[in-house]
């Protein structure tokens, strides 16, 4: 397990190195002066500029510039937003938790819906249920998310009035920011309207999370279906049935576990996809997350914000990826051993 952890850590270091290298080079590729792109100080006076040049070591070669850039990042200094001249790292700290919350809830919904449906399809392989589930998943996969989001707002918020259409929580509730994850903050707060706030926040998250979950859920259906079909054809399932176990025992004791292991490996990959969808959805549902902020920054050509936002988002995705790898290893005794290559 130690070797496994070290491997993941070194992979993390290398990926971070590449990511920072990319975001660093973006400063030179974006139009405008590199030092302005880096710091975001568009209105800097000449004396401030000299200070900035000193801080980012622009007179030295690229290697040292990169090193100073790294040290700035490690110290939590991501520069100022060109559009609002506010500190980017505080903005990200305020916005990222909302995105984490939304995408994790969406991932949960996608898995809880997709995986069991895929298993059912695999068990009923080539029967009506299987075909039905497959066609529905095909449909869900082909629907574009912005259209689906608008449709959902139209149907569930405007016509039926079940769910609110925008925002994270009603403005009536004042929740103190502690962790940033709103549900935890609500539970931590000592407001007398705690439970009302909680149910309000739940009502707000359901619609966007479901819209995000549709496409990944269909992918999970397919993944779960193929891996279950593969598992059901393996020798150990055949041997288990020769051992006299009933079909249900085989499914619940052996097949589900082995199929889940195969799926978990792909969750990390699917998560990147999901975050992209979440960014678009955040715009539609005015969700105060980093995705909406990033898209707005792109509109405003806020280069400093774009490169920092990309860095933080990809870092987040990568951390989730590594976490799923750990879950995979915990579930799969084979991955923990020496035989595991990667």
């Amino acid at each position, binding site marked *: 397990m130690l070797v496994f952890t070290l491997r993941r850590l070194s992979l993390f270091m290398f990926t971070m190195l590449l990511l920072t290298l990319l975001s660093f080079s973006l400063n030179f590729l974006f139009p405008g002066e590199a030092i302005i792109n880096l710091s975001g100080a568009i209105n800097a006076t000449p004396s401030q500029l000299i200070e900035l040049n000193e801080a980012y070591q622009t007179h030295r070669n690229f290697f040292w510039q990169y090193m100073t850039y790294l040290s700035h990042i490690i110290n939590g200094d991501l520069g100022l937003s060109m559009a609002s001249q506010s500190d980017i790292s505080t903005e990200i700290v305020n916005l990222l938790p909302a995105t984490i919350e939304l995408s994790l809830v969406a991932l949960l919904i996608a898995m809880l819906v997709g995986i069991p449906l895929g298993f059912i399809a695999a068990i009923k392989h080539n029967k009506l249920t299987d075909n039905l589930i497959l066609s529905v998943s095909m449909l869900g996969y082909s629907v574009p998310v912005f259209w689906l989001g608008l449709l959902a707002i139209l149907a569930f918020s405007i016509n039926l009035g079940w769910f609110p259409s925008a925002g994270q929580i009603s403005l009536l509730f004042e929740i103190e920011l502690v962790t940033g994850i709103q549900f935890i903050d609500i539970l931590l707060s000592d407001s007398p309207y705690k439970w009302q706030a909680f149910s309000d926040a739940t009502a707000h998250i359901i619609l966007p999370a479901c819209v995000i979950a549709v496409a990944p859920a269909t992918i999970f259906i397919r993944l779960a279906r193929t891996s279950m079909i593969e598992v059901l*054809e*393996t*020798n*150990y399932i*055949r*041997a*288990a*049935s*020769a*051992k*006299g*176990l009933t079909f249900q*025992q085989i499914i619940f*004791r*052996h097949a589900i*576990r*082995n199929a889940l*292991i195969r799926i978990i490996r792909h969750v990390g990959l699917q998560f990147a996809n999901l975050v992209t969808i979440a960014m678009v959805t955040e715009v539609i549902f005015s969700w105060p997350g980093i995705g909406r902020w990033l898209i707005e920054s792109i509109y405003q050509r806020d280069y400093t914000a774009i490169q920092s936002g990309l860095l933080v988002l990809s870092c987040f995705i990568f951390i989730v990826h590594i976490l799923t790898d750990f879950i995979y290893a915990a*579930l*799969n*005794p*084979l991955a923990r*051993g020496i*035989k595991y290559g990667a």
Partner: protein
Amino acid sequence: MNLLDIRNLSIELIHDEQSILAVDKISLSMKEGEVRGLVGESGSGKSLLAQALVGVLDDKWHVHADRFHWRGIDLLHLSIEERKALLSRDIAMIFQEPMACLDPTTSIGEQLTEAIDSGQLSGFFWQRKQQRQSAAIKLLHKVGIKDHNACLSSYPHQLTEAFCQRVMIAMALARRPILLIADEPTAAMEISNEGQIFRLLASLNQLKNMSILLISHDIENITHWTNTITVMYSGQFVEAGTTTQIFSKPLHPYTRALVDSSPSANLHLPAKSRLKTLPGSIPILQHLPIGCRLGPRCPRAQQACVKAPSVTNFHGHKVSCHFPLTPPSPLPKKIIKGDN
């Protein structure tokens, strides 16, 4: 009374509206306490036959038989569930590649205890777990594994193939089977381990009077351990008889070739000369010859061979060939006619 009596069992593969007769009218019978070898090249349908016996083939295979008796009970008249329940209680099976037959994500202990059927346990449900555990340990001792704790807590990939096969045998024994079907139990195993597994099976046969159907592609390898042998070729019945009959007086050209090609029969051959073998190789399922499927490779084939031969019985030595090798002196009595 025969333990198992199968007459004219066929297995068809239904694929894209097409059907292929993978096993063509095989008859097989076993007595109580008997060790029977089932020999054939890979692709001869012997594993299929075994899997059909325990009922683990999936839907694309269709099995039918003229007669299927298990300890005097006609299984063809039972429903699928009843048949499966009866067979899984009395027949156990071990496979080749034992490691692939163990769930890689579940510990040996868990897999072994779940094979123990709760009917054997007495106590209340809170004592069950303990009882299962001790029953599992006893089973491991029976197959010669002494370090039971290490074994129970390990995962399949941490054990060697031979060790896994012992665990598989222990699992098979958990139901106290009357018949054990061993499908190439020692494939891909070293010689010393191979001997251990065979000795274990032989001792189980002698001590527990457990019948064993030993499936192998290597006739010489198993003659030492079997009482009787059935030979198959490309899904067709070839020859059946006692081990001595088959090995010393084969009647069928195919059995003759099998026996002749075994290394011990070739000991006196000069170095670097060719082994005696039949030309060609076993036909693939998509291109089966009509009539006797050995036809294209058979040195004795004649025109009559385009019709499948029927089984002839010479004092319990059954052979399915139009032109058997040593023509018998007394008039053979035909026991089964092929229907064409």
